[in-house]
Each structure stands twice: as C-alpha cells, then as structure tokens.
C-alpha cells in the first residue's frame, strides 16, 4: 500500500526512528536548547558538549516526535561529533537545502564533510513532503539555537 513512501521512510530512517542513537539527557553538557514544532506538538531537547577548541565533543537529544524527526535528530547527533561550530552550522545549511531545494539550487555553505553529507542524504525524500520538512529540520534548528545560546526555539 505504501511502496512509493519508501523514498521518505528509508530503512535507515525507520531504524533510527525506532532505535535513536545518542538518545537521553547526558550527565554533562555545556549547551542545550529546547525545540518545539507547534504544528504537531513535537518537542525535543538537544544537549551539546563543546570542547575548548570549539568542537562538538558530544551530542545527545531527547523528546518525542515522529519517525522523521527522531531519525533526523539521531543522525544529526552522529554527524555532529568532532565538528567545529562553523562546520556544524555549515552542515545545517546544507541539510536545510537538502530538505527544501532541488540539488542544483543548493547554495554554498563552505567546506562540508563528505561522509556526513552522504549519511544525511537519506532524508532528502522529505523534499517531496512539504508538510514534513519541519519534522526533519527541528533537531537542526534546535542545535543551531544551542550553539547560538538561545534556549528555546521553534520551527515556526
């Protein structure tokens, strides 16, 4: 019945949605923000540990949401580790383009980690579902808020 939804719900997404990585509030962290999608009521918290060099030493999240938002948050925490704040923001810019624009419309966000780009590509199917873009980008908006020092953010 749902064969043509496999582009959106790829196996990797179903797996991360069901078994999110880096889930739960860590014992220590030095940046956090709370993100909310008023449309569906999803709320997540993103916890970052930024080390002295300005790199993301650790990233966690908790909260509840749909398979897309949970998988996106899970994949985000994995790809963020080891990135500088600038690299993390660049990845956010790329990811936002991935979810909202065709490939040829992507803007230049600076150098990107090719491995992270490849991993995040599983979420590109969201582009065909405008109502679900915010599900995929909620975690990233929240990460951005954590880095910028805003404790609360919404996707609106």
């Amino acid at each position, binding site marked *: *019945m*749902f064969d043509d*939804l496999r582009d959106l719900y790829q196996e990797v997404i179903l797996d991360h949605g069901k078994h999110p990585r880096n889930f739960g509030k860590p014992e220590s962290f030095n940046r956090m923000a709370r993100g909310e999608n008023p449309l569906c009521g999803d709320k997540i918290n993103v916890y970052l540990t930024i080390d002295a060099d300005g790199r993301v030493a650790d990233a966690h999240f908790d909260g509840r949401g749909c398979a897309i938002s949970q998988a996106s948050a899970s994949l985000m925490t994995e790809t963020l580790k080891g990135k500088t704040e600038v690299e993390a923001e660049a990845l956010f810019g790329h990811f936002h383009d991935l979810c909202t624009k065709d490939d040829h419309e992507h803007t230049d966000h600076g150098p990107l980690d090719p491995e992270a780009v490849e991993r995040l590509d599983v979420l590109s199917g969201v582009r065909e579902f405008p109502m679900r873009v915010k599900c995929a980008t909620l975690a990233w908006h929240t990460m951005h808020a954590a880095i910028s020092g805003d404790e609360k953010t919404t996707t609106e």
Partner: protein
Amino acid sequence: MDTRLSNAPFDVEKIRQDFPILTRLVHEKPGRPGKSLVYLDNAASAQKPRAVIDAMANFMAHDYSNVHRGVHYLSQVATTLYEATRDKTATFLNAPSRDTIVFTRSATEAFNLVASSWGGTHLTAGDEIILSVMEHHANIVPWQLLRARTGIVIKVAPVLDDGTLDLDALADLLKSPKVKLVSITHGSNVLGTVTPAAEIARMAHAAGAKVLFDGSQAAVHMPVDVQAIDADFYIMTGHKLYGPTGFGVLYGKAEILESMPPYQGGGDMIQSVSFEETTFREVPHRFEAGTPPIVEGIGFGAAIDYVTALGMGAIHAHEQRLLAYATEKLRAIDGLRLIGTSPTKAAILSFTIDGVHPHDIGTLVDRAGVAVRVGRHCAEPLMERFGVGATARASFALYNTEAEADALVDAVRAVREFFN
C-alpha cells in the same frame, strides 16, 4: 412532526453525488493511478454540496450588491437574500427570534465577541468562569485575554477517563458563589464527547451563572434546540456545516444581547454618527460592524437548506451507524488506543498506535487516499490530560460510508505493518 427529524430513507450513495469533490482522485501522477479520496477530516472542515457552491456563484453572478444600505434594486435583493439566512439559522437552532442570531466571521470571532463584550462589561476581578479541559483553544484563549485585562479567574472542569464530562466535579466548581459563566463544548472536536447541555445549563443557572455552548462540532452532527437546552449563548460555524469559510453564528438570549455593548465599531452597526456622539443600531446589527460576509451568508443559508432537507435527525442516525461500525473495527487493531469512548459521542474517532507517531500515521494513510487530521487539534490541554503528544483523528460526515471506514481501517492496519 418536527421536519428536522425526518425519517426519509438516507441514500448515502445518492447524497454523495451532491458533493463534486468526492469523485476526485488524489496523489495522481503520470504513470501512477490516483487514489479515491476518502475524506475523514470533516471535524476540521466539511466538503461543500453543489447547492452551496451554486448558491454562492449564482448570487455573485445575478444578485450581488452590498447589503443594508442601498436604495437601489440589487441592494434590496441582496439584503433580502442575506437576511433570509438569519431566519433559516433561527429555525435551524430553534431560536425564539431572528434577532437573537448574530452573524460573525467565524466561531472564533463569536467567542471573542462574547468574551470582550459580555465578559468585558459583566465580569470583574475575582469573578470565575468555568471551562472544561476538552475545550478548543478558541474557547480558552479569548478568556485568557479577558483575564489579563480584568483579573477574572478561569476554572477547569475535568473529564473522566472515557472522555465524559465530569459532572460531579463541575457541580463542585459551581459551589463557588463567584462563578458567572460556564463556557463549555457541546461536542468535543477531539474526543467526540457530546455533553449533556440541558443538564449543564440547569446546573449553571441554579448556581446563578450563565452558560455558553461551543456548538462548532455538535450542531453539524445532530439537531440542536437552544431553547430546549436553555442556552444563554450558543456558537456555531458555517464551514463545518457544509457551508463556506468566513461565517460564524452567535445565538444569544435577547435580554443578554441587549445588555451588551458593541464588539467592533464601524459602518452598518450605527444609527447615527457625529464626532461628539454615536448611537448604535439595535441587536443583532449592533454586533455586525462593517460589510458582512455577504456571499458566505448566502452559502451558509444554502447549507442550512441542504441539511434541513436531509433532516438533522437522519444525518445523526447515519453518522451514529458509521461511528459504531468504525469503532468496532478500529478496536480490533492491536496496539490501537481510542482516545474518547464516551457513551454519548459524535462520529469523531481520535486514536494513537503504539510505537507509531500520529504524524507518520497521517502521511501514510494519506497515500492510501485517506485524509485524517493529526496533531493536537487546537486542544493542547486535552492532549496533556490523556498523556499523548498528539493523536490521529478520523471524523465522519453525512456523506461518508462504511466502505470508507473500511478503507481507514485497512490503511491503519498497513501502517502497523509498515512500522513493525
């Protein structure tokens, strides 16, 4: 016999032909056949019969003009047609007089009107109003805005685990001598719960309080008699009753409306204006500032004619059959939790599925052509009450069928398998 309880046979297949949109396909793409639309998002907004569409188009093509002010021919024609909707609405709600019917641009505006005009003059700091936990945000936020201005106190009546209004708790809240208003839904947009309006009104009146019912859902699913339930205010909306958007109704008892100042100022609501003093028109026009939603009013009148011809009693009976059928089928699905199982409810089914977020349910069943609402349904406190972040909601209308309930159930089963 009350014609609103017509016993004419309810031929749903024939009725479906009145709604052009019901034959369209969704998700059609080159190389991919579309799916038949199974529209189960009626609690958000209902589809329109040809009679409503034609009435609005014909009015604009032949009879359109502004109303209430011109001496020319078309202005009088348009005014007569527009004002006929007020008579139809009064009959539909069994209101005692056409002058008790105020037209607004939405149910939401009607709530704001009552909160601002009635609440602003009859309530003072410390006065209490009682809402219920299952209210739509439209029956919460206007009161909070009033609270910020005047210092009124908002109390909340709870519901039982099956979604029935907790009348004992309501009785306790009514023991306070400060309660001035009970503003409560006549039918929950999430749980489907239909509240015992006459009993609530009796309790409120015995405590010296006024009572307002939100009929946005109830009035489209069953016959409503504002005199029988002794409502002081009753609010409904046009677009859920198969009419256009941009049109709402506030019924108010004559003496209460008379006691209220204007809500908005502007043209059409005044008797005479000078820079020193302005006098206002009589009720209900006092509350209808500016050019009204004329075309929408014509469409709403046509919608009332349409449902009245079918019979609200017959519509109710048909939807109750669908509710019983769909409830039984959904209940048989493992891991599915129905939110709202009150013995008196309208054909609205909110549910969650273990391990599957409602948003994912919505996207998946949509691919099978089934349109449901997912999310918080503008009732966030109620989501908290039932410990869910969101639900999926299938809401039935007069044109839905058992086959469509089956399509919903099949799609939901497939969702379970997809995420298994």
